[in-house]
């Protein structure tokens, strides 16, 4: 064998050796191996949150049939609740921080139907049934005085009541004339505004045309000087699956999707100036306020197609501003419009999750999860969230699974 052949042979042997080693390494690498590895997480120290900082969380389980609840201006963590028992209206206070419950005060013996407590708990508005008529009574908690602000015959009805955020003005949506008679003017409803701190009580009334059968929502600003009114048809009461469905609406009849589209097209929204009684139609397509949430100092908040929108000036020409994605579960906004709380299901677990959003000049400054509950009780029949005293508390009330106990959570921030 000459030198050249030896060289070639040695080269081949080296190549074969390298290939074998590569294969062995790969085989070893591909084989299942026992590996223990420690991975430190990135040491990014979270910056001090500048958003909503929860300082205290307290909860209280209340036993009883609560029909309305609101915060009390008396103290932080104090809630004012109304119980209904055999037509009696019972008032009670719960101090969630102190875990104490006040004595019950029976403020009405024959209370029926609709009860609405003013924010801060100073007034309670409710329907009362007398012998031949009905009346809307406002009960002043501090003095214990009752005043019938409206009287009407028994076949008329109050469609809706709303208190202003300062708890002094009551808005009533009804078809009852001031005389107490049912108004028979076709196609109109009346919105009354009662100022409970004035002598006259009835501060203004506005007539708004009716657009067929619909639901009206009233969204007053903090002092009820302006009220946003939206229309929503009762589309959900119709079962499109049933055959020969006859719609109650006499003017609008049709089938399925076409009918809903027709109804939607008929929906109108107004902004009412309660002082000048000026009623102006709002372009909801421009403002993107599909479902109104709150009329705050910052503007009107609403949800449309899974997004939260802010219309700073509902009557202006500027379109609404998209803030964030949200599910339409519950959104709680303070009267200033800078604290937003999303109360929703956590993805994956389905547990209650509260997310706090701090808005500054209409821009989201901070977005953080504030609370996670391990129960999903917000699906219960009674579930209410509201901002408490001085915009420093978020109150989450929900009925427990036994339907008799109410869980009240106060998140102080």
């Amino acid at each position, binding site marked *: 064998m000459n030198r050249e052949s030896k060289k070639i042979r040695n080269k081949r042997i080296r190549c074969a050796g390298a290939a074998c080693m590569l294969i062995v390494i790969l085989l070893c*690498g591909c084989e299942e191996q026992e590996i223990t590895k420690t*991975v430190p997480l990135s040491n990014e120290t979270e910056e001090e949150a500048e958003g909503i900082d929860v300082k205290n969380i307290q909860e209280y389980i209340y036993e009883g049939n609560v029909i309305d609840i609101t915060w009390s201006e008396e103290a932080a963590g104090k809630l004012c609740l109304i119980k209904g028992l055999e037509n009696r209206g019972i008032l009670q206070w719960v101090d969630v921080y102190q875990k104490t419950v006040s004595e019950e005060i029976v403020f009405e013996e024959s209370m029926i139907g609709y009860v609405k407590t003013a924010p801060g708990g100073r007034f309670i508005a409710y329907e009362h049934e007398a012998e031949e008529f009905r009346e809307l009574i406002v009960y002043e908690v501090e003095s214990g005085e009752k005043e019938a602000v409206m009287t009407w015959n028994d076949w008329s009805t109050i469609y809706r009541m709303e208190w202003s955020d300062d708890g002094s003005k009551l808005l009533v949506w009804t078809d009852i004339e001031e005389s107490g008679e049912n108004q028979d003017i076709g196609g109109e409803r009346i919105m009354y505004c009662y100022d409970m701190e004035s002598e006259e009580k009835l501060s203004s009334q506005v007539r708004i045309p009716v657009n067929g059968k619909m639901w009206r929502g009233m969204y007053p600003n903090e002092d009820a000087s302006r009220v946003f009114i939206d229309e929503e048809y009762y589309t959900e009461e119709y079962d499109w699956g049933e055959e020969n469905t006859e719609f109650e609406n006499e003017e609008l009849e049709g089938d399925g999707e076409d009918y809903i589209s027709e109804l939607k097209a008929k929906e109108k929204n107004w902004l009412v100036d309660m002082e000048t009684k000026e009623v102006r139609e709002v372009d909801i397509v421009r403002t993107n306020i599909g479902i109104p949430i709150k009329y705050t100092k910052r503007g009107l908040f609403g949800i449309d197609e899974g997004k939260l929108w802010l219309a700073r000036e509902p009557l202006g020409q500027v379109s609404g501003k998209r803030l964030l994605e949200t599910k339409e579960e519950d959104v709680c906004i303070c009267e200033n419009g800078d604290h937003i709380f999303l109360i929703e299901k956590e993805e994956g*677990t389905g547990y209650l999750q509260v997310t706090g959003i701090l808005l500054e000049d209409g821009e989201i400054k901070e977005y953080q999860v504030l609370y996670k509950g391990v129960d999903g009780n917000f699906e219960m029949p009674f579930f209410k969230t509201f901002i408490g005293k001085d915009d420093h508390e978020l109150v989450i009330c929900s009925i427990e699974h036994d339907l008799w106990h109410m869980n009240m959570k106060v998140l102080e921030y």
Partner: protein
Amino acid sequence: MCRKSRFFHRILFKMSVWVFLLGFVSVLIVTYIVKAQMRQNIEKQITEEMNSIQSNCELYVRQILLINSASISETGFEQCAYEIEQQLKRAGYTDIALYTMDGRLLRSSKLQRFSGENRRKDFQFARKLRSAFTLRYKKQNYCDVYFSMPVQVMGQQVGILSYYQDYSALYKREWETIGGMLRVMVMAFGIIYLMIWFMIRRMIRPVQQLGRISEDISDHLKDGQFDSNMLEKLGDVKRKDEIGELSRNYMQMVSVIKEQFEKIQEDRDHILHLWNSRQEFYNNVTHELKTPLTTISGYAQLLEENGLGDEELFYNGIEHILQESTRLHRMVIQLLEMQDKGRYIRMGQVDAAVVLRSVTDAMQTKAKRYKNCLILDVKQGDYLVEGQEDRIRQVLINLIDNGIKYGRIGGNIRIRLAKEDGAVQITVENQGEGMDKEELSHIFEPFYRADKDRSREMGSSGLGLSISKKIMEEHGGTIQAESEPGGYTIFRVCFPAAGERRD
């Protein structure tokens, strides 16, 4: 080379092995990369999950401390350890352990899982206020994670939380995905390998055929044959690729080689023939020279022994010596003529008719001796040729002499002179025993005699026709013979007519 060894040296085998090795290594590399990627993905997924767990746990701990009005401190954490554990359990974190900042166990959902935590690096990280998880891959698709984090509430370090999670299901699922992918890959590789194998085989087959054909041609060459019939089996000449080109070139090369081979064979035969002729010529010369010398020598000895005592023997001996020496002399002259290249022959215009008539007249006496009749047939015309009269005469004498000697006794010898296509043609025809083709092919060779005994009897040296051929070549003419065994024999010489000759 033995058959087994040849198999291992075949291109198909080598390429198959290489393709297989490359494919195998590729599969291994892909597996290695995919596995590394899978682990990276798992780690990434677990890291994201641990980040989420960390923020959730901190939130839950904060909630519990606030709800229980506990101080945001290690003490509060210790006091609410049970509630924290319960809350985290409700939130789905079942395997947890709570520690103080100095690593003292407060609560543990499953003690056996959290033993020896001080040896775990993640726990050591947590004690240094850094969250970490320890990922353990074991055999049988077992994978679990220990996560340890310092719990920070409102900027305060309140304790350490360890969390255990079994990720075997995730790991197994990833492995199953990889396994499925690998199976598909191996199947794909198998199919591709087979396709490549068939392609290589198809590509190599013509080369193999060429090899076999070359081998066959080589085998036949040993027997002195060039068998190119095997090329018909080469069926890839129509291919337009390199293989087709190679096949075509190979075929062309083989046909050229075949031509050359045949030419070489022809030349070899010719050389052999020349060699044999030379040998035969040499043998004939020595034999022909030896015969008269033997006669002369014999008679000379007799004359020496008897002297003048026997007058008859003396004269008879002298006569024989004279005859044989004359014949020997003539033979030597003829041999010299054969060697003469004719360089110094001075050509001139010769009237072939005159020469032919002269020779015919001269040969009449010999013809009569054989009871033959020379019939001359000369047509009117111009029969001038370029040449040397003596040499032309010698040719004609040789032909007519042969016609007389080898013709039938009492037969006619026809001599014709004609002019055809610018050439002067003389034919000498006799009737006799004739010659076959084999004999005809040799008659112009020196010392060749169709009938040797008879020829010698007639005083023939066997050089006449070869000398005649040589002379004709010198004159730019031709000499041909045709014969029928047992019949006629015709000798035909053609001279270029004067002015027609082209050397």
